[in-house]
């Protein structure tokens, strides 16, 4: 399965799934830039989680022709009314849920998953992240970050298949439809979405490095935001993370702020996946990185920025019980949209709930009247 055989025309069945090692930056148009960049890093010898991708072409034709025609009819009428979008969404989800993935696609995924089990040496214990990877995501005209589904900690192949289909279906939620309408999609046709399936790193701490100060735009400073556990709690805005400000030139840590970390994203064996859970009290008050780790992450992010030529957000994870630098994994990176060239700096991530009133801080200040709160 070479990359350049499919530059035109419908892809052959064999190209439905690509191993990460075979993915290059030029594959963005079929695996999405998120996964393509990971393949690019892997080829350059960077530590990234191994995995595979289901291409947008394959997902674009997994539904039987009749069902695809039905979806196309649904979205032939342009409308932005919320109730219409909701109704369309319900109808679309119904069509999608009534069809299992076809055997040609299921088999390709099963084979790729088996290869991944062997490469990682984890066999049946392998757990993966199943991530939506939009072809147009992070593009200059609009950011769809956070609009599509991601599932962490998926174990067996049947669940992987189910989650792949759910990722694709997440392009038809009313929220996603509305988003695409705003982004200028006149006709609400089916979306171009690939899915990445990546080995789940046994994460101790995770977060984001901004290669500029995301608040002021100051390019001399880098900012690290992080929490214990998987990075989802940080990128979804569900936690006030630990924060470090680092001088880009010297690598010196200028500021350290331990966040009021109340929750974390942790693997829950009962739920069979990663869930948002209360952070154990002994971890909450402790910074989740040491200065060496902060400096190393910033150095790596600066390398990525130099390679890309514009400021970047770099998502990373640090594996448990592994010495630096082998512990550091780069999960994805993308141009820093707010201060970069994008004319429409849409902040994108879903708004975090409950920002205006924090009962705990309010009680400390106004009920218990603790001085200085």
């Amino acid at each position: 399965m070479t990359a350049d055989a499919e530059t035109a025309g419908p892809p052959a069945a064999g190209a439905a799934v690509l191993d990460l090692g075979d993915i290059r930056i030029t594959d963005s148009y079929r695996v999405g830039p998120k996964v393509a960049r990971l393949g690019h890093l892997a080829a350059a010898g960077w530590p990234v989680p191994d995995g595979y991708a289901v291409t947008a072409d394959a997902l674009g034709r997994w539904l039987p022709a009749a069902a695809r025609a039905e979806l196309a009819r649904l979205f032939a009428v342009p409308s932005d009314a919320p109730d219409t979008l909701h109704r369309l969404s319900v109808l679309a989800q119904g069509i999608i849920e009534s069809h299992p993935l076809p055997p040609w696609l299921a088999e390709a995924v099963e084979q790729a998953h088996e290869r991944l089990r062997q490469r990682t040496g984890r066999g049946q214990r392998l757990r993966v992240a199943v991530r939506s990877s939009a072809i147009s995501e992070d593009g200059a005209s609009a950011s769809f970050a956070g609009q599509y589904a991601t599932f962490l900690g998926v174990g067996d192949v049947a669940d992987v298949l189910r989650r792949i289909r759910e990722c694709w279906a997440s392009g038809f939620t009313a929220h996603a439809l509305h988003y695409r309408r705003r982004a200028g999609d006149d006709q609400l046709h089916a979306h171009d979405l690939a899915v990445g399936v990546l080995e789940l790193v046994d994460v101790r701490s995770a977060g984001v490095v901004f290669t500029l100060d995301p608040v002021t735009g100051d390019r001399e400073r880098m900012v690290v935001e992080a929490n214990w556990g998987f990075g989802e709690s940080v990128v979804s805005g569900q936690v006030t993370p630990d924060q470090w400000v680092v001088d880009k030139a010297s690598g010196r840590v200028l500021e350290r702020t331990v966040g009021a970390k109340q929750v974390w994203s942790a693997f829950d064996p009962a739920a069979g996946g990663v869930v948002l859970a209360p952070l154990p009290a002994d971890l909450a008050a402790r910074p989740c990185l040491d200065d060496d780790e902060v400096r190393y992450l910033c150095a790596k992010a600066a390398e990525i920025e130099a390679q890309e030529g514009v400021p970047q957000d770099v998502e990373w994870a640090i594996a448990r019980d592994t010495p630096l630098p082998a512990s550091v994994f780069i999960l994805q990176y993308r141009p820093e949209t707010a201060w970069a060239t994008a004319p429409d700096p849409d902040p994108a991530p879903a708004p975090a709930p409950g920002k205006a009133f924090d009962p705990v801080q309010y009680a400390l200040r106004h009920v218990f009247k603790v001085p200085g709160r």
Partner: protein
Amino acid sequence: MTTQAGPRINPVDDFVRDELYPGYKQDFGSQPFVAGPVRPFSKADNARYWLRDSLHFSEGMVPASIATLDDAQTWGAQLGAEIVGVPPTRGSVNRLAGTHVYIGTIDVDTDWQIQSRANRFGEYVGPILADFDRYWAMRAGELQSAYDHFDNLDLTGMNPGQLWATVKDAYAFHRRAWFIHFEVMYVLTANYLAFYQLAEEIGLGGSVVSALLAGEQTFYSKTDEELWKLAGRARDLDVTAPLRHADPADMRGQIEALPKGRTWWGEFEEFLRTYGWRMEETCRVDTPSWVEDPAPALYTIGTFLSKPDSFDFHAARQLAVAERDDQIEAARRAVNGSDLQRFNEALASNQAANFAWWNEEHNYLIDRRAAIPVRRASLELGARLAAEGRIDRPDDLFFLFKPELFAVMEGGAARWPDLAAMIPDRRAYFEHWRERGPELPTMLGTIPDVVPDPIMIEVFGLSGHFLETLKRGPADVTELRGFPASKGVVEGVARVITTVTDISKVQPGEILVCGGTTTEWTPVFGIIKACVCDTGGSLTHAAIVSREYGIPCVVGTAAATQTIKTGDRVRVDGRQGTVQVLASQVS
């Protein structure tokens, strides 16, 4: 202790003792205390304030109940406050006047401790409030699985070693249950009080808050509804006469003598299997559960039957819920912009982690139930000891202190004849103090100008006004002021009740005047016209239940039971928070 002209003191001197009971001194170190165990009053206690807790313990404590009190309101509260990190208080501490319980607080008074507790508090409480359903399900599940264990033990079939192990397990469980109680209570009261203060800040007034959180179904409201249905079944099956008129002791015989009586009694027993695991008071191992003695449940059914035409359980509940929703809408219309956003978020936080609901719900799992395993295992042990001639009757065991019992059972120095010899005196001591209960002051020690612990203010009602009234002392007044707990204005005849065991004296249409109410008082709210209490704030049982039953209620009046006499004609204004004596019975 200086005696200045300023603070009023109700001296504790009359109650100062070395011993908790004749022949027993609390052995310091017998319990793993965080701050301090249950003790008799000492002279030094004159410098602190002590509130009589007739809310939870109206009749006094037998020696065995002092161990359960130690685990509950003393140790449990202290450990809960310590672990949660409540900034201004290290929990409550108890003293006994005779056998009666007074509660005090342990204020945190250094800046460093307050700051370090505030840090801990934020870390501990935030995640719990963010995911309260799951957290409470975990704690409730732990408690329920313990009950599944204890309730199904075949105590009579156990050998002596197994039975003694069960007694010890039951005590250990009781202690654990009470840590859970205070852990959850402190977390939820913080959430509630934040909402209360926000409502004050944005001009709604804190007193509306508990009404906005009312109307949620609890295990006890389900219990009352089931009793109401059993009253309906009693009409269907034509067994109402004994329920309304018979002495509880003969009720079963009289009911079963009726043609369909056995059917009804069978349904009643089915009810008890689910809802009967409750005692009438907290920590009182000397009192039976409904499973043992269902008289309180039968009384409630009789109460429902005595008002056949008026009270409709469903209608009252629906009305309460509709009124709550109206009040929420009215509150939303009254605030704008960022205040509205904060209000909505605070409301959502309190709906998800609702103290008004939990305050009633937890009684079934903790307050009224946690001591039942101790009681059942102790009674079986007592029966065997009585059969061996060591004690006269099974419940003699409740007149031994837990350390005495453990010492004699585990080969310590104590001997049965010495212990048994003290029991008659201790029974007399308990009876003596039970009779003196109603005359004990609401507060002992130094009545403060202000109580810093917001929990004492909201749960026990120690507001500035309350303290003022107490300082003035008994006075010939015709108007009392308190917290406006449930709106409406009515006039009627007062019935003053000081202990829940007298509850059957209340007649339909009377105005209940009492120290404070707990879950066991709930049935009476179906027949009374209004409720007036000495103690209590916005969160107390009487406030919450009055709203659900749609009757006016004023709490925290400080002196209602001393000012008002049974038979007085009074006017209760639940919106203004006033109670007027219109015509006194006393000539």
